[in-house]
């Protein structure tokens, strides 16, 4: 894992804070912030794992850090003979973190114990430590410093194993070769050392500014036919302060070549670099470079010899806040570090502020040249102490969530009309629509209003209001009508309302029934009235089922809990209404509502009546032509026209029929509504 350097006033110091992912599974992310605190975050849960403040954090701020290579640790004991299922599970435990400080000391911190493990001082550096690298087997540690020296430490004893002068100026970066026998060091130029003898093996030109990162990119030579001595043919990568180019170098057998093989160009100084090692020739090296401007550049390249032109990135990732509304513009969120996950297909991104970073796993999609992730980190600023201990996360439950209760459309599948039927209806509608001209309709309307003007019954204003309200969908007007509690008034209004408004009214009632239960109580009265009075009309409608499906479901779901009770109630109501009907048959007189259409096969009625009917209900019209059943009903309506008293009986009959159905357990619309009323 590479670590960026610490920042200070020094213009040639690398930008960014020292941070690193723990090796192997990237379970932790360590970040030494500028306030001297070392914080270790859990990448999976984005939780602060621990925080450590070195005793000398003010004077000797942390300049670099490195995780020790994972050590295997047996977690549980070997298999028992008694029970077969008991046995071992091991895990790679990483728990040591090496911190270099500005005063030259190196601290070893144990993340498992949460305390300082040891301090490497004696015989070490007397100036700022620039880079620390662990040897693969974990026994050694290499560090380099501004004091021009490289020190090899024995971690077991915490003593200096070897110390040698690495450069004429400060040594800024180190990297151990994949086989563990060589060491790269860099100030401005890059040197390759043989670790055994501490002799320079190769020189490379390096950068104009101090090198901030060094990394081997391959572990196998590109040409596999030649015998591999562990180092020849390998590529490595270097990045430097204030340098927007990352150079790739190749270790060659002859000592002549000192310049870079190729280079990658990025938008700003590299702050954090991570790469996936390519293990064979075909597999491209994937490189993620975090720049100081907060972007991540991804490169995917098969390293294969020279390339003059600097390569540009395959993909750039940026993160920004959502711009709320039109006023605030999205602001970029800086990415602090990026590390490849072990599957090489996703990237761990650390972004936000260094004291409360967010860690996220992002799946890679290299086809897209630019990824901009929108993230809201505004609520990340409050420290979450409580959740840190209880480990409880509360998902957001706000009022915007949709709530479905039985009866609300969407809770149950919508009742759809059988497809064949609707087609027929539609075709009929078209043909019917053409027959009546607008002028005729207007004329018909005039007559209609004129007629209504004649009737000066008090309740008549209610049907008018209702009709107007339904047509204009005026909430206020409807409220005025529908919120009445007078049963008699309701009944009269329903009797007088024009037939074509029945369906809109029912839909309006359904909508209101789904609302607050208090208002629903009133609506039930209306519903009851409409359904009893206009049952005959409703039964003539061909598309009744889809039109009133929602109402049906609503009633069904509400009634379900009191099934037996509502059965009884329905029967009682039936009885009572029949008794009252027989007692005072002629109390309420149905107003002279004229049939909109009378259809007789042999002889037709007056022309004018037909015209009025046209305007109102085309459905009826179509229906009449189609179904013989409706004809009878219309005939009945016709009779009513002449003999108003017949009406009540008709209704009674309707109810009778309905209740019978209910008793049979038939789930029809009408019985349910009756029993539903309370």
């Amino acid at each position, binding site marked *: 894992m590479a670590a960026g350097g610490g920042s200070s006033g020094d213009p040639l110091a690398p930008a960014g804070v020292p941070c690193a992912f723990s090796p192997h599974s990237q379970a932790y992310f360590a970040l030494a912030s500028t306030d001297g605190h070392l914080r270790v975050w859990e990448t999976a849960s984005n939780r602060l794992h621990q925080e450590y403040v070195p005793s000398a954090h003010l004077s000797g701020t942390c300049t670099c850090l490195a995780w020790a290579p994972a050590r295997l640790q047996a977690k549980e004991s070997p298999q028992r003979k008694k029970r077969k299922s008991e046995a071992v599970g091991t895990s790679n435990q990483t728990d040591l973190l090496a911190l270099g400080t500005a005063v030259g000391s190196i601290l070893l911190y144990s993340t*498992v114990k949460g*305390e300082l493990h040891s301090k490497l001082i004696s015989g070490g550096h007397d100036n700022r430590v620039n880079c620390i690298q662990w040897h693969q087997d974990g026994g050694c540690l290499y560090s380099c410093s501004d004091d021009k020296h490289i020190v090899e430490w024995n971690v077991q004893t915490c003593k200096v194993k070897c110390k040698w002068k690495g450069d004429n100026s400060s040594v800024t970066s180190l990297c151990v070769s994949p086989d563990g026998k060589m060491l790269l060091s860099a100030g401005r130029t890059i040197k390759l050392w043989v670790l055994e003898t501490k002799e320079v093996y190769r020189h490379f030109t390096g950068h104009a500014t101090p090198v901030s990162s060094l990394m081997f990119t391959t572990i196998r030579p590109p040409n596999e036919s030649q015998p591999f001595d562990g180092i020849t043919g390998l590529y490595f990568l270097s990045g430097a302060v204030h340098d927007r180019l990352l150079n790739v170098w190749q270790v060659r057998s002859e000592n002549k070549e000192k310049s870079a093989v190729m280079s990658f160009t990025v938008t700003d100084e590299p702050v954090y670099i991570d790469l996936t090692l390519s293990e064979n020739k075909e597999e491209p090296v994937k490189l993620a470079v975090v720049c100081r401007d907060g972007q991540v550049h991804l490169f995917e390249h098969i390293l294969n010899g020279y390339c003059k032109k600097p390569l540009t990135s395959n993909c750039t990732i940026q993160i920004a806040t959502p711009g709320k509304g039109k006023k605030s513009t999205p602001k970029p969120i800086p990415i602090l570090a990026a590390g490849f996950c072990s599957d090489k297909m996703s990237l761990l991104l650390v972004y936000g502020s260094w004291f409360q970073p967010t860690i996220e796993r992002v799946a890679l999609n290299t086809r897209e040249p630019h990824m901009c992730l929108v993230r809201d980190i505004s609520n990340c600023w409050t420290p979450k102490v409580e959740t840190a201990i209880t480990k409880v996360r509360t998902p957001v439950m706000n009022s915007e969530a949709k709530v479905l209760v039985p009866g609300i459309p969407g809770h149950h599948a919508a009742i759809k009309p059988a497809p064949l039927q609707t087609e027929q209806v539609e075709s009929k509608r078209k043909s019917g629509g053409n027959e009546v001209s607008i002028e005729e309709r207007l004329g018909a309307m005039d007559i209609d209003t004129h007629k209504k003007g004649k009737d000066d019954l008090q309740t008549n204003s209610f049907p008018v209001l209702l009709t107007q309200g339904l047509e204009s969908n005026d909430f206020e007007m409807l409220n005025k009508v529908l919120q009445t509690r007078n049963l008699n008034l309701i009944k009269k209004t329903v009797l007088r309302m024009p037939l074509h408004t029945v369906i809109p009214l029912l839909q309006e009632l359904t909508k209101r029934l789904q609302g607050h239960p208090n208002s629903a109580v009133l609506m039930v009265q209306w519903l009851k009235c409409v359904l009893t009075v206009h049952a005959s009309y409703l039964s003539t409608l061909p598309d009744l089922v889809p039109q009133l499906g929602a109402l049906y479901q609503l009633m069904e779901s509400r009634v379900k809990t009191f099934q037996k009770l509502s059965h009884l109630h329905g029967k009682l109501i039936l009885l009572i209404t029949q008794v009252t009907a027989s007692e005072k048959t002629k109390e309420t007189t149905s107003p002279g509502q004229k049939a909109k259409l009378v259809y007789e096969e042999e002889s037709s009625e007056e022309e004018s009546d037909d015209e009025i009917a046209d305007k109102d209900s085309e459905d009826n019209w179509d229906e009449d032509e189609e179904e013989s059943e409706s004809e009878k009903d219309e005939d009945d309506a016709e009779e009513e026209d002449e003999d108003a008293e017949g009406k009540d009986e008709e209704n009674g009959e309707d109810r009778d029929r309905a209740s019978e159905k209910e008793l049979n357990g038939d789930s029809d619309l009408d019985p349910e509504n009756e029993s539903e009323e309370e």
Partner: protein
Amino acid sequence: MVEEESIRVVRCGGSELNFRRAVFSADSKYIFCVSGDFVKVYSTATEECVHILHGHRNLVTGIQLNPNNHLQLYSCSLDGTIKLWDYIDGILIKTFIVRCKLHALFTVAQAEDSVFVTVNKEKPDIFQLVSVKLPKSSSQEVEAKELSIVLDYINQSPKCIAFGNEGVYVAAVRDFYLSVYFFKKKTTSRRNFYDEKKYTYTCLHWHHDIVMDLAFSVTGSSLLSGGRESVLVEWRDATEKNKEFLPRLGATIEHISVSPAGDLFCTSHSDNKITIIHRNLEASAVIQGLVKDRSIFTGLMIDPRTKALVLNGKPGHLQFYSLQSDKQLYNLDIMQQEYINDYGLIQIELKKAAFGCFGNWLATVEQRQEKETELELQMKLWMYSKKTQGFILNTKIHMPHEDCITALCFCNAEKSEQPTLVTASKDGYFKVWILTDDSDIYKKAVGWTCDFVGSYHKYQATNCCFSEDGSLLAVSFEEIVTLWDSETWELKCTFCQRAGNIRHLCFGRLTCSKYLLGATENGILSCWNLLSCALEWSAKLNVRVMEPDPNSENIAAVSQSSVGSDLFVFKPSEPRPLYIQKGISREEVQWGVFVPRDVPESFTSEAYQWLNRSQFYFLTKSQSLLTFSTKSPEEKLTPTSKQLLAEESLPTTPFYFILGKHRQQQDEKLNEISENELVQLPLTENIPAISELLHTPAHVLPSAVFLCSMFVNSLLLSKETKSAEEIPKDVDMEEEKESENSDEENDFTEKIQETNNTDLGEDIIHQLSKSEEKELRKFRKIDYSWIAVL
């Protein structure tokens, strides 16, 4: 992996932590708890497991610090051994073989070479407290034969036995009897609380439910109690008025322990959790195992986003458990209701959960059923918001069905543009829910609505499953499997085997996608070919768990027989199973899941190929999580020895310099003295006052003035020859030390360990200390007056 061992079943975590009281180390840095056959050492600061002490061959039943050397730990187990450990390095020092089942362990500082254990003689319910003399021997394994009975007829639980007054007597309770044994007099006194005699007692009442454990603080000034209310109560001065509470600890408190240093308490909870609590009743850390309190309804799932194992967690929560690190990531609070911990309450249970669309959607079903007819059901659909990196409730559905939901599945086909969820219920219907646009003029929104309701002859829907490409939906209605076209929701065909209700249902994957598998309750596993609509094969297998591997054609089935559970891995297209392992567990396996590997393995032999892309985890009835491993035990064990053991070497601090210099001076002086007067004097580090000063945490120390004089006096004690003028200087110096002491907390604690490493003289010191301290206190009075004069 070149070398291949046989596949073994390994336990991969989530073992029990709350079996016995946890024990603190002397410096409160570590906490020990028994966990199955192991003793786990956790760091109190980081919640991390530092070591696992393994060596016992059966359940570990008790652990205690060695009173003579607090860097050592005794443990006893049902395998009849007492083991002595060095917990800092995780090394087994000694094994004492007792040869009978040990149920609890006690140590007393005064009984130098013996420990006390509870054993079970003859009858199953008769327990005895015996003292075991631990023979001194250099060999690793020693037989401890000298057993002497202390108390008979006692309770099995170690909570019912307590040693008092520095080991002068031991008290044990059973039923209504209290027995006290006096070691010096060797007599037992018994009391029966059942009779009506008047005893002198104090009654502290707050708990309304059973009190599970009690503990006195180190100083004895306060008493801690906890029980099912999951509230820790601290009774100050053992009076009913002065009590402090730490509420909402989450689950029933089963054990309470107090650190010897007195700065920390810990409570073990029934949900497999240890909470570490500061003296000021503030929870500072939680060590959480796999939650074990309740049964698992949701089964095992893998969150596609975090790759964590997801299952029921705390009540009303979904638990995200990282398999890589064997640690709980977090609990997702689905219910968002305060959990009332009371006996007999019927709680809302989180019954089902499912992830859909690559972790973007989460569906959860909550259910509460008090009586047959009173069913409360709620389904919640959560959307993962990338912006805020968390789940947001999108749709809440009350009573999605009339009866219990039996299965829940998302259509996870890659091409499906519209998220689809299917719920199957006992009410005989299955419902298809789709995500629709819910926008209006005020907001843009999406919401779930029911798209289709299907049923088949009013049979109960028992299971549902989408095919891999999402084109077919299979719903099982009791004995019958129905196939539905997911475009039009038309019933395509039905399969019926008449072999009992279908318990598991799944489609084959990849090349085997033309097969549908069903396992019935009567122990028949059937495979249907969807192209020919005919039964391809069937086998007699009592399948308990059937899980398809998402990355291959393989399907794992765990069958249950009278002896144990067997695993079969097979491809639907091939009649012979790829792999069979008999006896993976003696218990019933309840749930299983395939976890895709991050990095595929490359086993070449046919028997292991099924483990290449995914790993199979399963959960048994006792809720231990197990998996398969091919690595040999040796390979896994050796690294412990290989472990990089960097020496702890912390540099000297100013405090150390002063103390060290002082010590040197003293040593020199002592040497002089001993040469001249031949007086044996303890070294500075052995002086009790100093060790006491160093042992106790700074915040429980008395004021510096008090300490200072004591400190000085302790140094002065042997030096009668010293002139009076020298004393004030010393005082100043010590005061300096004190002030530095508080600054250098960290380094200071390191120092202690060094000074305490010498365990030889420890006993003598302890005995010395009392008399010395008395003297010191006397001296202190004089000292004070002397200061007052000045």
